[in-house]
């Protein structure tokens, strides 16, 4: 492979990383908003949040991407820059998966904690902010770590829309060189290295957060066993 082709690949990595960071931010925001809304006392809020989750979890990420790229501009006149269109589709879809993680972790906090908050006459928002979230967030990290790896794998889908991410650059190199084994092996390795780095970072974060609430690091191995992909286990 020539250096020109490597430059193409490096640009692809940069686009993938940007897309990953932006859609991870959006997905996190969506997860927390929707996940917390699912514990709201008004049934209509819970219902709407549940509806959102089922719709975005029920449909395929690639179909969502197609919808944002092709239907939004025609139907609503919103022509988005590819990067933002990809961020929107991935963030909303993976946010729906994330909201299940948030809901699960919130409901796993000992009910006595919630009751003590009531006894101290905290407002619902104070209970959420000062009691529930600090205890629930560290428990969410392993699941969010798996979801982040799923999101990384999901970013490859935007190459189908012609966005110049890592997978797209691999296709260009294949066309240029007329051979595929080498470049696809490299690209798979690059994705693996990114995924590996993310896993390590999230493990460090989990350790730090758990130390903050006086819990030792959980055995990461057993949590890895419970690892579930998109759609699996989070129901």
């Amino acid at each position: 492979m020539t250096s020109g082709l490597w430059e193409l690949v490096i640009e692809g990595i940069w686009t993938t990383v940007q897309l990953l960071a932006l859609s991870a931010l959006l997905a996190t925001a969506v997860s927390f908003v929707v996940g917390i809304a699912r514990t709201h006392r008004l049934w209509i809020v819970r219902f709407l949040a549940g509806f959102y989750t089922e719709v975005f979890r029920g449909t395929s990420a690639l179909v969502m991407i197609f919808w944002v790229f092709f239907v939004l501009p025609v139907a609503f006149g919103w022509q988005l820059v590819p990067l933002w269109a990809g961020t929107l589709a991935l963030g909303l879809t993976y946010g729906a998966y994330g909201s299940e993680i948030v809901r699960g972790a919130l409901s796993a906090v000992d009910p006595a904690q919630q009751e003590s908050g009531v006894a101290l006459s905290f407002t619902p928002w104070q209970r959420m902010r000062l009691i529930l979230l600090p205890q629930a967030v560290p428990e969410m990290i392993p699941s969010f770590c798996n979801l982040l790896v799923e999101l990384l794998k999901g970013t490859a889908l935007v190459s189908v829309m012609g966005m110049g991410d890592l997978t797209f650059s691999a296709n260009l190199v294949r066309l240029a060189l007329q051979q595929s084994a080498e470049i696809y092996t490299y690209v798979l390795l690059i994705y693996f290295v990114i995924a590996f780095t993310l896993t390590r970072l999230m493990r460090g974060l989990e350790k730090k957060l758990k130390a903050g609430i006086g819990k030792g690091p959980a055995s990461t191995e057993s949590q890895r066993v419970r690892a579930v992909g998109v759609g699996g286990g989070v129901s």
Partner: protein
Amino acid sequence: MTWDWNAVSDFMPYFWDGLVVSLQALLFGSLISFGLGLVWALLMRTPSRWVRWPVGVVTEFVRDTPLLVQLFFLFYVLPEWGLTFSALTTGVFAIGLHYSTYTMQVYRAGIEAVPVGQWEAATALNLPVRRTWTAVILPQAIRRVVPALGNYVIAMLKDTPILMAITVLELLGQARLFSQQHFQFTEPITVIGVAFIVISYPASLLIRALERRLVR
């Protein structure tokens, strides 16, 4: 926003064609992933680390890299090595292989959840290794993991549109073809989006019901 019901009715014949292909890919992909996943899970329990270590590394690698790139790899590299399959066959194999690395963890959890007493009873009855697995451990383990496997079937269903990238005309492939021929993007893509929800939501309810029955 304009919604044209005629476009929907024009698209429906293609929709059914696409649905058949999608469900075929799902069925065979599931079968491969269930079989291969069990093989990985059993290999991970062999005493020799020379087996466990490579299997662990390979499955971790497959699990952490995008299905789309794996699909391209199989679709473009295998012919270079002299192995030519149809696009659908390649796609089915790629989905099956990718998800087998998830189902292996499901099986592993299921096998680990079988009480130790069952192993000890098999030893006490002097059952050979083969009988221990086929008559004692696996029947109990698999019963527990059926709902979890079902979740992965739904996840696989939602990944079948990826096959479009290697020219398979499944639901999304049909929708894209129809859109490009008729310049109507809104209706076909919305129809298949709704179709995925209509299939996967009842399926997930079914799995929740199964979970209550089988896992106690």
